[in-house]
């Protein structure tokens, strides 16, 4: 049930993700982190609200689009900053170094396949593992409209459907795979249509509306936990920034981008909370101020980390 407290929590986490990323981008400008970052601005509602519907012991295979899903899965901000700084404060102690390889087994964050779509089959295997171990966990696999077209999706989705595995495939459909529009490479408009072919539930929703995302996700989670099988959840979203930092973005019209930005999930959710009388301006300002302080404190700690030396180069290769 989407309580008022959950609504506030979702907003807080979206604001946190947005602000955390802003801070990261400043580190990038300062040359402290690598430019291989794919900003998640615009995707906050889908990434945050879906994760808020999970438990700590549920699994996440995130995608490269920002970090909101990992933050909402309760990864520590210090670890995340440390990962991008490539130092030993990071979740991988400086060895995974930022997107793409971040992980936190304690919060079910299993990592990412840098080859897009690798997660489709891993997720099915995690789903099988949950089923064999007879727990009621679920696994969520994020990917974009581009990665939706990998052949691995067919193999993973097919077994997930056939064996009714507790897998939730979330496609973040922002309409673009770098410079390639979805319409040019995909015959259908909604990826949710594909779900039927795998015997799984398929839903396509406005991924800019966090409360709708939460409710849709809660249903999918309930279905998965109860043995009802997988869901393909498509959230239609807008990528506010370039594919990566420094992307000239020449392929997308100014009008399209401006129209998308009018849908800003963070801004609109704040307005909704005010309109519905859940919080006052001052209360939300205070909430944001507290989040800002949390982020600064996390960064301060992360900056004290040490970059791994050459002697750690083969650490973790073998057990």
């Amino acid at each position, binding site marked *: 049930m989407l309580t008022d407290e959950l609504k506030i929590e979702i907003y807080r986490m979206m604001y946190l993700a947005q602000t955390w990323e802003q801070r990261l981008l400043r580190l990038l400008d300062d040359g402290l982190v690598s430019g291989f970052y794919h900003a998640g601005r615009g995707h906050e509602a889908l990434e945050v609200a879906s994760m808020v519907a999970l438990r700590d012991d549920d699994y996440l295979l995130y995608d490269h689009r920002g970090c909101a899903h990992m933050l909402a899965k309760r990864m520590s901000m210090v670890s995340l900053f440390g990962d991008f700084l490539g130092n030993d404060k990071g979740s991988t102690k400086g060895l*995974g170094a930022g997107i793409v390889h971040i992980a936190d087994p304690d919060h079910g964050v299993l990592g990412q396949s840098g080859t897009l779509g690798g997660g489709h089959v891993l997720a099915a295997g*995690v789903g099988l593992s949950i089923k064999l171990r007879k727990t009621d966990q679920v696994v969520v696999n994020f990917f974009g409209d581009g990665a939706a077209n990998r052949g691995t999706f067919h193999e993973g989705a097919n077994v997930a459907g056939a064996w009714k595995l507790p897998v939730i495939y979330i496609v973040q459909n922002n309409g673009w795979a770098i410079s390639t529009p979805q319409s040019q490479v995909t015959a259908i408009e909604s990826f949710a249509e594909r779900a039927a072919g795998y015997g799984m539930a398929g839903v396509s929703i406005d991924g800019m509306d966090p409360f709708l995302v939460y409710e849709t996700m809660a249903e999918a989670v309930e279905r998965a936990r109860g043995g009802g099988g997988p869901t393909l959840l498509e959230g239609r979203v807008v990528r506010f920034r370039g594919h990566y930092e420094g992307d000239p973005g020449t392929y997308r019209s100014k009008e399209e981008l401006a129209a998308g930005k009018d849908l800003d999930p963070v801004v609109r959710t704040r307005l909704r909370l005010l309109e519905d009388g859940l919080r006052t301006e001052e209360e939300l300002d205070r909430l944001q101020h507290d989040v800002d302080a949390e982020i600064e404190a996390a960064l301060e700690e992360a900056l004290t980390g040490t970059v791994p030396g050459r002697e750690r180069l083969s650490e973790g290769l073998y057990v």
Partner: protein
Amino acid sequence: MTTTPTVRKLSYSRAINEALAEELARDERVFIMGQDVGAFGGAFGVTRGLHARFGGERVIDTPISEMFLVGGGVGAAITGLRPVVEMQYADFLWNAGDEIVGKMSKWRYMHGGLFTVPMVLRLPEGAAGGAGPEHSTCPEAALLAAAGSYIVIPSTPYDAKGLLKSAIRDDNPVAYFEHKGMYGLKGEVPEEEYTIPLGQADLKRVGDDVSIITWGRMVHRALEAAETAAADGISVEVLDLRCLRPLDVAAIVATVEKTGRVIISHEAGKTGGGGGEIAAIIAEECITSLEAPVRRICGIETPVPQSTHLEQYVVPTAEDLGAAITDIARY
């Protein structure tokens, strides 16, 4: 009169089956998945009886989805299980290239050692009577560049069982290549439980004049050639590497230093089949011990032909090895 206890004989295929059964019984986290591995018992009958004994949740029939087989195995392995995945043919490892090289081999490393990937990928390999170019190769060397995974190639029923049990218990991912042409091969396999550590070569025959460094099914042809050479007064040592990773470099160096004359032999084509790597290690570690140039007696560099008649010319024979032994001994 004393009686020596007779050691039980088992086929290579039964030895693998027994290792699987013992590990399934020992550890409930172990499960098998693959195409037709269930009630049918696998394309080559290797998993026969396991489904009946352990049930459909421990021995799982999958769709024809090699990327899922390996990638799904990784997913299960990083969340607490120990999958033993059967590819119907080793040749299909390319179908799951990224899952093997990018996921199975690298997941642990690229996530800072936070996970272990305790899985075994069983890969039935080799030319075995007309299976054709896409079902007959020995692709073990393809994984040499996939640091993070071990490569095991047993040559006898005894090794097949002991190495598989170790592979299943190891927390690293293991690619386990079993030659289809050896499934019927019988050998001694004791009743008692045993394991063989990964990364230890086995000196199959001791000799003084020439060393054959080999693995997999070629071990038997090397032993046959060594026997023939002995009749001609040439003493041949046969070293079965058993694993390409971890590689027993010390055993390679020891035999090279002993005989100074080395033949490297494998069934895969000479280029890229793994022998070049062994030769390079010899050059780096003990080139001054060589009395003669290194010889490689390996597969012909064509695809394995579909025709059974032609297939026999692709894989090196004991005679090919015999000729090389005579040659190198005289050098």
